[in-house]
């Protein structure tokens, strides 16, 4: 009944109660007449879509929010959006679970004498803050404002408010601040900015440590552009990194470089490019001379990449017409990081691809973002006790900063620390006053992730709790502080800001479309030869060497820098490389494992000079010896040094030692085998030529389909295992999150899983496995009650309400894609709001599985019927296909000869898994190109 009450309220406002009235769902016993007829276009039981912007990471992808009965139930990438153009990553998909998170902070809280939090009203909170602002101004203490990366109107507003209230606005804090790249570009071109890389225009891409598919700047955007280019076969892509990242695993070729030695590699490349004869505009002589001359052997010596590999990269760059080099990630986060970034910059300069591929005009807006050194300073100032009020908005330094900074301790020395956020993370727990922020789906705003790209943040529902948007808080503070009383809300502020910027008409367009894209003239930049030369001089005496074995802290696909740790769905979905879902782990190379006799799940104590952690081990094929790897979010306040020149953190712990603890940890490794056992789930590229369509011999007459036969094609060459589809499926289909205990028993519920299969060379290919909707399905025959059957449209349907739970279907499914409800799965309130009313939530004892999003098919056919036509190709697609950033998944009607699906299914790359079993699946795979790993 709770929901009813809410609806009554909203109903009064918008009349959207009518949507829920007479809802056949949840067998409700009440039937509501609202007061006013709803606005035009709102039809009960029909989904409504609203534009917004994802705020899970700084990338700022455009969203299209699906609303049902007044509730957001699904996020999808906004098609045509300049950043993500329809794609959305695993973190973005999970953003809904943040909105509906049961542990969201519901109201402002003040720490009382006992150190416990207790709720207070917003009025109290605001006045408390402005009072303490005032008297710390009086007592000569400084008031500081620290936040995560802030762009667009909010940035402007923050600036204004800080000026008005004499609050010092600190550089924003991001763990991944790309400081080395900014420094290098500042040095070489006088542009302290992260440029926008036009991957789509390059014909050769060399990424050095930059995990462009996971967290680097704008992963979805990169993934989309890259996979479009690869789809057209126009680009070759090499990747160089010291550890093993999902990005590396997906490159055409991956080279493992010794930690911290990327600069050597790049200088060798640069030298070679220069020697290959003049490219415009060339290098100033002093730079050219400063550049050291390396033989292939010594370069290979220095980088650990075999000579052959070096030459391969070298020639690839030299022969490419439009080569692009992107350095970043862990490769720029070590003592020589600046050089690495600078070298990359110079290669870009020499190959003349500025501004063609490297666009400073529309930089990625990292100007306001500070470094670890800034935070070190802040910690120092806190320690000196010169800080009055400290605002900490959307940032978690206590977790991310090295212990050495002793930020946690010093934070206490501030007169008043004001934490702003949605979940009670480490920093919030340290704060004196906690101000809960509304989720982006509950508040107005905009973001400018890239210069000239403004994306709309638009509320789709009233705040679930007593929360405010950061803008509103600031405005209220200003109102109190400047004594002019609380001004209009942030919404009004934004509206006239936009009005001023785009004009009335432009604003409405913006509100409807969800984004605007301004065009700029390309920006010419020039290389500062002197600085470049001196940098190279310094490099001769290279101090980049890291004492091995070294522990690399890698960015996490699932939680970015750890900000996603709170979201249950992100722990439920396994890490694609290790298939570990819940808990932390340390990746070690097979070599290391062998020599020190380590097995999966074995606990070790990993320690450096003044630090140690106990972690279970996962043997990671493809990882080079002498390198251990953990995800950034597994280690709280890791012992990281600050790099002198860039101020960035060194994301390496050198001289790491492992000591067996002798215990085994319960780690849910979902994969039963990291190799295919020669079973050809992904056919060996060696016999790619072979025809994979076995003629099927059957004792029975074939059964046909009249109008539709729904089918799916998955291009394994494009799939990069990013697991966005898995998250999308979870949310679209109300797939429950079951937790670690059941994962250990292999009882995960996900309808769609990413199966990584490793080759002997440590190369990996990903196989998305879902119900194959077989034409002759083994699961159907054995069901005693027809709960599983083959419907006239070629779907393998599971009738939940008929299922008695013999589990025979699952036993007989060669793909093991059927999931059984071992328990009653409940959605902790308010997560139940997220449920898609087009599906029933399955009770205990019922078998469930992928339905090809039958509810979407149903809707499409309904539309079709209304217009008296068949469903058009591309009109209906599954949730997984929709959110896939690479566009690897295509869904459609196999009977329609010129649908994309039937064209692709006919291609000679197409095959089906276990075709020899004669199950005749409706899911076709296009098998991948060979991805060798160079090392």
């Amino acid at each position: 009944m709770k929901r009813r009450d809410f609806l009554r309220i909203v109903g009064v406002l918008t009349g959207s109660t009518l949507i829920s009235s007479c809802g056949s769902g949840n067998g409700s016993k009440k039937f509501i007449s609202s007061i006013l007829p709803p606005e035009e276009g709102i039809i009960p039981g029909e989904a409504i879509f609203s534009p917004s912007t994802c705020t899970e990471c700084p990338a700022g992808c455009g969203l299209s929010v699906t609303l049902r009965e007044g509730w957001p139930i699904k996020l999808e990438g906004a098609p045509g959006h300049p950043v993500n153009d329809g794609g959305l990553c695993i973190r973005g998909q999970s953003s809904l679970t943040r909105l509906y998170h049961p542990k969201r902070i519901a109201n402002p809280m003040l720490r009382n004498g006992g150190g416990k939090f207790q709720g207070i009203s917003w009025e109290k909170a605001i006045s408390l803050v402005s009072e303490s602002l005032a008297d710390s101004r009086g007592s000569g203490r400084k008031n500081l404002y620290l936040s995560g990366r802030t762009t667009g109107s909010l940035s402007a507003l923050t600036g204004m408010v800080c000026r008005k209230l004499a609050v010092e606005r600190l550089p924003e804090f991001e763990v991944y601040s790309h400081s080395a790249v900014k420094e290098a570009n500042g040095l070489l071109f006088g542009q302290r900015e992260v440029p926008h890389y036009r991957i789509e225009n390059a014909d050769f891409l060399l990424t050095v440590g930059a995990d462009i598919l996971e967290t680097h700047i704008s992963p979805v955007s990169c993934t989309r552009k890259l996979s479009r280019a690869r789809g057209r076969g126009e680009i070759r892509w090499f990747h160089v990194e010291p550890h093993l990242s999902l990005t590396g695993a997906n490159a055409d070729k991956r080279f493992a470089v010794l930690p911290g030695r990327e600069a050597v590699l790049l200088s060798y490349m640069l030298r070679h490019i220069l020697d290959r004869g003049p490219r415009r505009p060339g290098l100033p002589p002093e730079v050219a001379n400063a550049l050291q001359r390396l033989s292939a052997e010594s370069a290979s010596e220095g980088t650990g990449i075999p000579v052959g590999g070096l030459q391969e990269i070298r020639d690839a760059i030299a022969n490419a017409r439009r080569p692009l080099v992107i350095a970043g990630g862990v490769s720029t986060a070590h003592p020589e990081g600046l050089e690495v970034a600078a070298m990359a910059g110079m290669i870009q300069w020499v190959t003349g691809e500025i501004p063609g591929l490297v666009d400073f005009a529309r930089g990625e807006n990292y100007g306001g973002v500070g470094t670890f050194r800034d935070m070190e300073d802040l910690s120092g100032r806190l320690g000196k006790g010169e800080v009055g009020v400290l605002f900490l908005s959307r940032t978690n330094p206590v977790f991310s900063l090295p212990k050495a900074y002793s930020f946690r301790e010093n934070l206490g020395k501030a007169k008043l620390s004001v934490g702003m956020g949605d979940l009670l993370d480490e920093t919030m727990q340290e704060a004196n006053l906690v101000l809960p922020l509304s989720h982006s789906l509950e508040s107005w705003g905009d973001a400018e992730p890239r210069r000239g790209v403004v994306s709309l943040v638009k509320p789709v529902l009233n705040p679930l709790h007593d929360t405010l948007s950061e803008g509103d808080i600031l405005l209220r503070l200003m109102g109190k502080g400047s004594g002019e009383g609380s001004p209009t809300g942030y919404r009004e502020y934004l509206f006239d800001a936009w009005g001023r910027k785009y004009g009335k008409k432009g604003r409405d367009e913006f509100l409807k479309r969800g984004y605007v894209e301004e065009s700029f003239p390309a920006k010419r930049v020039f290389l500062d030869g002197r600085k470049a030369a001196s940098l190279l001089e310094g490099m001769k005496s290279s101090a980049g060497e890291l004492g091995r074995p070294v522990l690399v802290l890698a960015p996490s696909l699932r939680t970015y820098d750890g900000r996603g740790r709170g979201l249950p769905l992100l722990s439920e979905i396994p890490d694609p490389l290790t298939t570990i879902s819940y808990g932390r782990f340390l990746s070690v190379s097979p070599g290391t494992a062998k020599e020190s006799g380590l097995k999966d799940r074995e606990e070790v104590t990993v320690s450096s000079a003044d630090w140690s952690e106990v972690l279970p081990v996962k043997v990671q094929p493809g990882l080079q010896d002498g390198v251990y790897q953990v995800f950034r979010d597994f280690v709280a306040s890791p012992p990281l040094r600050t790099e002198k020149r860039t101020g960035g953190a060194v994301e390496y712990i050198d001289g790491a030692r492992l000591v067996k603890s002798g215990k085994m940890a319960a780690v849910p490794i979902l994969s039963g085998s990291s190799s295919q056992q020669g079973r050809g789930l992904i056919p060996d590229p060696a016999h790619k030529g072979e025809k994979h369509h076995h003629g099927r011999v059957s004792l029975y007459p074939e059964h046909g389909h009249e109008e539709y036969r729904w089918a799916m094609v998955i291009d394994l060459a494009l799939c990069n295992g990013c697991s966005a589809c898995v998250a999308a499926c979870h949310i679209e289909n109300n797939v429950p999150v079951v937790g670690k205990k059941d994962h250990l028993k292999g009882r995960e519920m996900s309808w769609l899983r990413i199966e990584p299969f490793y080759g002997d060379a440590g190369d990996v290919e990903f196989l998305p496995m879902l119900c194959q909707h077989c034409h002759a399905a083994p699961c159907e025959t054995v069901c005693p009650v027809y709960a599983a059957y083959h419907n006239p449209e070629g779907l393998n349907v599971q009738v939940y309400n008929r299922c008695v739970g013999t589990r025979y279907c699952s036993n007989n499914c060669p793909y093991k894609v059927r999931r059984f409800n071992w328990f009653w799965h409940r959605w902790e309130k308010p997560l139940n709001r997220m449920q898609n009313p087009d599906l029933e939530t399955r009770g205990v004892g019922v078998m469930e599985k992928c339905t090809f999003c039958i509810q979407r098919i149903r809707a499409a056919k309904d539309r079709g019927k209304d217009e008296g036509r068949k469903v058009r190709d591309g009109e209906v697609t599954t949730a997984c296909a929709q959110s896939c950033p690479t566009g690897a998944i295509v869904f459609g009607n196999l009977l329609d000869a010129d649908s994309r699906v039937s064209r692709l299914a006919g291609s000679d790359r197409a095959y089906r898994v276990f075709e020899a079993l004669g199950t005749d699946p409706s899911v076709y795979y296009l098998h991948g190109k060979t991805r060798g790993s160079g090392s």
Partner: protein
Amino acid sequence: MERNLKKPAILLAVSGYFGVFLLITVALGFSWYRGGQAPDQPIAFPHTIHVSKLSLPCNFCHIYVDRSRHAGAPALETCMSCHRAIATEREEIRKLTRHYEEKRPVLWIRVYSLPEHVYFSHKRHVKAGVDCSECHGMVGAMKKIRRVGSLEMGWCVSCHRAKGAPRDCATCHK
């Protein structure tokens, strides 16, 4: 004497055994009967007058019946459009007016409700030319709305059989 103790014991056992079944049957019958009953609505809305006397078409109030899976309940605005003027002195109409003025939605008591796992679309049925009365009975003749169909699966299926409508499970099962 053992005998004459056993006899009644057996008798009791037997009668108890059958008694239980009798009770269950009675209970079921009663509940079924209740199910068929017409509940008292917050506002005693007479379909008799609106449908028979005024012969308003169903979709005059249930505006979504041919546009959405839900027929939809009329917004009070719709009722008031007439009842601002008509029969304002009647008690029920006063109730209505109060609801309207206090902006309190009317919570009607559901007579037809389908379980969660069923997908049903009014639109499809209406567009297929199924007359409302085929499922909802002669609403015009009901002072209080009474459920006529059992709404059990068999009830739907027999009609689908008769009309040659699709009998693919996925048509109705979510």
